[in-house]
């Protein structure tokens, strides 16, 4: 999900130097780096001519911005109304226990970031858990657990391959 090859200057240059492009910039920084560092925010603010305080206001106001590095995998539990009625909240609680992290946080080993989302609009599949970009339909604690184990084994393979190379 992150493209660390992208230089920050390259992102900054994508937009004209006007305050209205601050959110565009922060979104691009976030999608390239997974979060917005203090330095990146300073650069974005300088470019758009927005005082850092106001840039920080923006970054903390909108839910999609993260100011800390996020985990390797993102688990988003949908808490739309349909998912709530079908046990979405129970899934959040279960994942919090399992991963030992609060919703919105990242596990200590930086493997998983757990977050909640207010409706992904896939209500027919409620409750829905989105792991990275994969939708788990009619999710149960068991299903989610299985998916996490799949990710764990993929990761193990990835490390091995990396080691051989």
């Amino acid at each position, binding site marked *: 999900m992150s493209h660390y090859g992208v230089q920050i200057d390259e992102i900054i240059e994508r937009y004209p130097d006007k305050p209205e492009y*601050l959110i565009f910039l922060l979104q691009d920084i976030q999608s390239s780096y997974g979060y917005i560092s203090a330095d990146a925010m300073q650069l974005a603010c300088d470019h758009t001519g927005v005082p850092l305080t106001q840039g920080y206001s923006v970054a903390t106001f909108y839910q999609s911005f993260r100011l800390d590095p996020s985990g390797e995998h993102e688990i988003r539990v949908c808490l739309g109304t349909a998912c709530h009625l079908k046990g979405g909240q*129970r899934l959040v609680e279960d994942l919090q226990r399992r991963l030992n992290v609060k919703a919105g946080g990242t596990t200590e080993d930086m493997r998983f970031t757990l977050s909640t989302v207010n409706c992904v609009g896939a209500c027919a599949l409620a409750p829905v858990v989105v792991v990275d970009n994969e939708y788990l339909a009619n999710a149960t604690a068991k299903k989610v657990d299985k998916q996490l184990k799949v990710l764990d084994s993929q990761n193990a393979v990835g490390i091995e391959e990396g080691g051989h190379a």
Partner: protein
Amino acid sequence: MHSQSTALKVGSWRLQSAQDLNKLREQILSERDPARPEIVICHGTGCLANGSDKVAKAFKTAIDAAGIDAKVVPGIKTTGCHGFCSRGPLVIIRPKGLFYQRVSPKDVEEIVKRTLVEGQAVERLLYKDPKTDDLIFTEDQIPFYKLQQRVVLHNIGKIDPTDISDTIAAGGYQALAKALSTMRPEQVVKEIEKSGLRGRGGAGFPTGKKWRSALNAIKKKGRPVYVVVNGDEGDPGAFMDRTIMEGDPHAVLEGLILAAYALGAQQGYLYVRAEYPLAIRHLEIAMAQARAFGLLGENILNSGFSFDARINRGAGAFVCGESTALFTSIEGKPGNPRPKYVRSVEEGLWGRPTVLNNVETFANVPLIIERGSGWYAGLGVSHSTGTKVFSLVGKVNNVGLVEVPMGVPMAAIVEEIGGGVPNGKPFKAVQTGGPSGGCIPYRLKGTPVDFDSLTAAGSMMGSGAMIVMDDTDCVVDVGRYFLRFLEEESCGKCLPCRLGLTRMREILDNFSKGQGTEQDIEDLTSLAQAVQDGALCALGSSAPNPVLTTLRYFKEEYMAHIRDHKCPAGVCKDLITYSIDPELCTGCMSCARQCPAQCITGKKKAAHIIDAEKCLRCGICMDTCKFNAVVIS
């Protein structure tokens, strides 16, 4: 998405007139063979999540492998959401229109062989009418579709939204061509006024009146004026706007361009929720194609009228669905609603006259201009004309997207189109209008679904989410849910909203624990009134609605929590206990393995027991048990 319908190259056409558009349309249609089989695969978010992209791939492979005669190679078309989400992935085989549901990649080979080669239906994939057990072959015969009137959604599920030639073939941009060549801007406004169209985003403000006020504001203040699409569909349970943006992006764009023409705007904005990446992509593609064809940008259709638009992705804030918050967000600031008693049509984006309408509203505009306001006003009921798209979700058999004329009774939508509640019992309530709306109880199931009737019942139309609740859903819990949602989503500026919603939720928290008094209910009502009266924007002032309507219709259920310390629906954790029915338990041990508190004991093949003292009431055992042996009391 791949459509093989036409050899058109984007960029090779720059349309110079309405006649050009018609010529192009005729050319596209003439290149098509109506007898050629076409496999239409739903690629709405619901079907995609169920693997419809894998189904599409499987079709391609299977067709190649089957070596079907080169003259009749079937086309594969991927489209927006067909609406019948609970039956996805959906596949339709044209020209016959065979409707297959719950198709998985492993079914594909059989479909190719049986249907495409041998011309027979694969019966096990057909829809079976749950009432009569009859097999239904085509989409239009399925009760879910039969009772609907698809006007705004008429193209969705038929066209490839990423191919403008498909849109043009279906009649897209005809309204724009008509307006630019035969109508003055003022006439466009007049048509919208006469149609009776009301905003589909929530409050139902008459669209024509809004446009007229903007014209008046422009007279006073001059231009520029801006037109903005509100695609920040934030109501949980609502996905109609997403479906329109994903499935028929040109319709939204055409509506926006028409509004711009009517008002003389040169710049427009589409503010789309960040959670809708596919909608954003399809709109981007649509805009690029429209520009290439001379339908957007400089000198549209050589009429002298120029207009362009850009997309602003939301960044995750429900409050940005509120008009002034949306404007401040486009300006690059935190989405705090503006504390001003000046209407947006006078002072909106960048302090200029601005017309903001919702996605579905804009999608209605080309239909009105093309077919006439008289036709449109004939749909629906007198003060709520036209149709409305609803997302029907929750405890209902046919979950999906539904379009009906305004004024249809609630029962027709939930029971006939929706097929009722899965457990066969009557529904308990229907929550409409999202966090700003309310719960309509079963006894008011005859309520006509239009703007004014829903408001009279204490709820509102909102954007069109309909969440069906059954007897296992608790109104106290639903009230807490919406308040917690809004606490997080409030901008936090004004005190009634920032402090009041939390205090209201805390009172409900107490109820859910079996605590509280009748005085608390009185306080809750009075505080709710203060929040309604005192909040700065519509998010806060409508926030008490879910609680107030449930207090109005389900007071007994509140009293059961307070007086009897019981949650009749079996939802509120502190008032329920989980146990295992020894008759039903097979001793499979599955629940014991999953229990995070490890409080389930029992030997293999013998009934298990839950230790109520240690139980966290997380419900995992209940979700895990395949034999429905875990019960709540």
